[in-house]
């Protein structure tokens, strides 16, 4: 009997220990856990292979890959892997690399390696191929000479896009999408939608790395993220819900915030019988209360948008005019266009067609469901029935224009610091993502001019005209720009929010 008791007690103690877990007293290794809501397949960041859709964002953010040039805090091009470039003629660019750049596996990152990488990039990545228009690349020691098929004034900017991360193509890409880059960290394990494990790059070419091991946890749910940071399971978080900010506004945590060009905006579907009507588009533009959306729902962590770019850019919203929030005006616009509520249910009709707006959006950017519900209420006031479809499957649905009328999404509109990117990615006939099939002869003409314009001021002027064209057609309604924040424990240093939202985990990261 006594033996049984002792056995039972031993079991109980064992189980308790098992449950609590024995803490690992290791070594003086510095470890860091980063919680991120956006590192997932839903955001087209399934892995860290920069040549796979938008996964380059993960590659560059988590310090695995680096691009030839990078952006300064004022969004100007500065050297990174490359030290300088020279625009020999309209079609030819000579880029000189820094000496001593090595991949994390020890291979030298020379002209030949960059050439291999860029050739693979344009072969594998549709958007990059369209942006770069590379004809030939020649490598000679530490210089490469790129010839484009047509004038590409923004080539250097495009090369600084996350897809331009230089990876060792000879080392290949593992099945789970791990690549070898030149950054301060080396990926050792990756499970899509779960985690990424990084270790210090012992061969890092550009200074010392402070942290030995990093785990990036995909935590798509904002509440889980908040609890994880509160409980100390993660050291820093990206994508915290605004509603949770007050929890961290104390001395235990630090915020790093910056204005970005990430815009939250609504795309109109020109194939839809409803939103193909200019009056409906205009009424939607007049029916969204951007000011309150930013000040209340985003708790001031944002800026109401006019055009695609924030006011910090020379081609920003200050140069543009668009509809402002005016419910009465919107009602009038709809009345004049023949949209009248004949059956008294509060929703307007025209020729038997109800003014129903199928509003497609997705939950991983927490601002978007807030925008949807806020627009649903304000547009209802002017007689529109907004049916929100907030789904992670948005990227499939938006490709079928019969399934939606308005698509609200988030996008960094000027990741390259240049206005062309936004238009080439979603507003032109040739744009891969122009799923609403917007077409404007004027815009196409201006875009063609921009293609050949090398003068920065003139490009900015064209950028303004192009935005105004889009706004005059109400093809897009820009609602707000993001003031991006990362929240971290107060002992974390070197984790700084950057205006282009590309650089997060750098060699400067430290935890004390």
């Amino acid at each position, binding site marked *: 009997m006594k033996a049984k008791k002792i056995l039972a007690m031993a079991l109980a103690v064992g189980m308790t220990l098992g449950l609590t877990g024995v803490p690992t007293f290791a070594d003086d290794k510095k470890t860091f856990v980063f919680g991120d809501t956006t590192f997932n397949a839903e955001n087209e960041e399934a892995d860290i292979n920069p040549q796979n859709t938008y996964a380059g964002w993960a590659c560059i953010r988590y310090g695995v890959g680096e691009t030839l040039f990078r952006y300064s805090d004022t969004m100007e091009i500065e050297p990174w892997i490359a030290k300088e470039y020279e625009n020999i003629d309209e079609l030819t660019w000579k880029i000189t690399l820094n000496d001593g750049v090595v991949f994390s596996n020890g291979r030298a990152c020379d002209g030949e390696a960059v050439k291999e990488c860029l050739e693979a990039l344009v072969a594998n990545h549709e958007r990059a191929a369209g942006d770069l228009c590379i004809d030939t690349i020649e490598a000679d020691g530490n210089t490469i000479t790129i010839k484009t098929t047509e004038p590409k004034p923004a080539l250097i900017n495009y090369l600084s896009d996350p897809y331009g991360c230089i990876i060792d193509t000879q080392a290949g890409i593992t099945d789970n999408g791990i690549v070898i880059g030149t950054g301060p960290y080396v990926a050792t394990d990756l499970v899509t939608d779960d985690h990424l494990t990084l270790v210090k790059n012992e061969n890092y070419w550009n200074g010392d790395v402070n942290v030995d091991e990093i785990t990036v946890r995909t935590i798509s749910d*904002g*509440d889980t993220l*908040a609890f994880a940071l509160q409980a100390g399971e993660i050291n820093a978080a990206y994508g915290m*819900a605004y*509603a*949770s900010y*007050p*929890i961290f506004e104390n001395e235990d945590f630090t915020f790093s915030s910056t204005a970005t060009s990430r815009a939250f905006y609504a795309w109109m579907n020109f194939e839809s019988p409803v939103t193909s009507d200019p009056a409906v588009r205009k009424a939607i533009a007049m029916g969204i*209360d951007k000011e*309150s*959306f930013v*000040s*209340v*729902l985003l708790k001031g962590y944002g800026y109401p948008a006019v055009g695609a770019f924030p006011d910090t850019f020379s081609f920003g919203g200050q140069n543009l005019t668009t509809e402002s929030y005016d419910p009465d005006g919107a009602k009038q616009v709809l009345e004049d266009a023949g949209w009248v509520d004949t059956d008294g249910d509060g929703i307007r009709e025209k020729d038997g067609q109800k003014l129903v707006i199928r509003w497609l959006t997705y939950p991983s950017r927490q601002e978007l*469901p*807030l925008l*949807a*519900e*806020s627009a*649903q*209420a*304000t547009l*209802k006031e002017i007689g529109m029935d907004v049916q*929100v479809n*907030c789904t992670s499957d948005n990227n499939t649905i938006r490709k079928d224009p019969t399934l939606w009328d308005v698509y609200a999404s988030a996008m960094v509109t000027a990741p390259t610091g240049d206005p062309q990117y936004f238009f080439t990615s979603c507003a032109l006939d040739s744009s891969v993502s122009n799923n609403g099939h917007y077409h404007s002869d004027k815009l196409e003409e201006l875009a063609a001019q921009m293609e050949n314009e090398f003068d920065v001021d003139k490009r900015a002027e064209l950028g303004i005209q192009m935005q105004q064209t889009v706004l005059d057609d109400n093809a897009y309604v820009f609602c707000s720009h993001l003031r991006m924040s990362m929240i971290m424990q107060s002992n974390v240093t070197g984790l700084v929010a950057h205006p282009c939202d590309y650089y997060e985990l750098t060699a400067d990261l430290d935890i004390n």
Partner: protein
Amino acid sequence: MSKRKNEDMNVRNTATKEYGKKVTVRVQKVKKSHIKQKLVFFTVLAVCLVILAVFSDHLCPYDPYAQDLSSALQAPSLAHPMGTDTYGRDMLSRVISGARASIFSTFILVAVISIFGTIVGVGCGYYGGIMDSVMMRISDVCLAFPGLVFAMAIAAILGGGIQNAIIALAVISWPKYSRIARSQTLALKNEPYIHAAILSGDSSLQIMLRHVFPNMLGPVLVTAMLDIGTMMMELAGLSFLGLGAQIPMAEWGSMMSSGRSMIQTYPWVVLSPGIAIFVSVVIFNLLGDTVRDYLDPKNREAF
């Protein structure tokens, strides 16, 4: 069970013998009036909830769908007894308005599954044969899955919306009733009075309606009453997961879901619908329990 009952009876008989009959009668009277009181009390509460749901349009102090961003996330006050949500909507109005969605949907759901399940059960039990086997295997399939998981799968296929959530839960919940009805029918159909009815030329439909169905009303009713609370929780659960009511519809489950990120910062946004669910589920469960006690044959002789 029956052995214990016999023992109880023995004890009671002894007590009667020793202390006289009066004592026993008094104890039963107390028990009887206690159950009756409970029944009346919970019925009144449940009726109050139903009235709240029926007249929710008139009882809401504000429009539950009117956003007023200037008064977003206000703490409970005299003007807004349950505070306001992210969009400045009055929580009390939304909770009252949500009562309609939550309670009526539950009633519809329970009515559908109990009626359909009973019809299937009586039919299967009375006729037997291939139909019986087929229907019972289908019900086995439904019962084999964990209920809510199966409902989630169906709701996900059908898409969001409270109607689809009702359909999803109905599809998985009817077999319980068909099982009860079938077993009762099997027991009843060999009763002499059924044979007598057959001999006197009653049609099968007449027998089922007049002689079988009324005799199983009790168990079915009790199960249905007890199911109201469960179904309310499951509907709210589906809405919480985004598979039931869609925004901006005021429904308790979806209100909790949209407010859950505020549990630490603005707790009233999630607690108001949470308490509403808690209170209504408790009321309907206790009412169900009391109805069961009331209809229990053990207590019946007391009335």
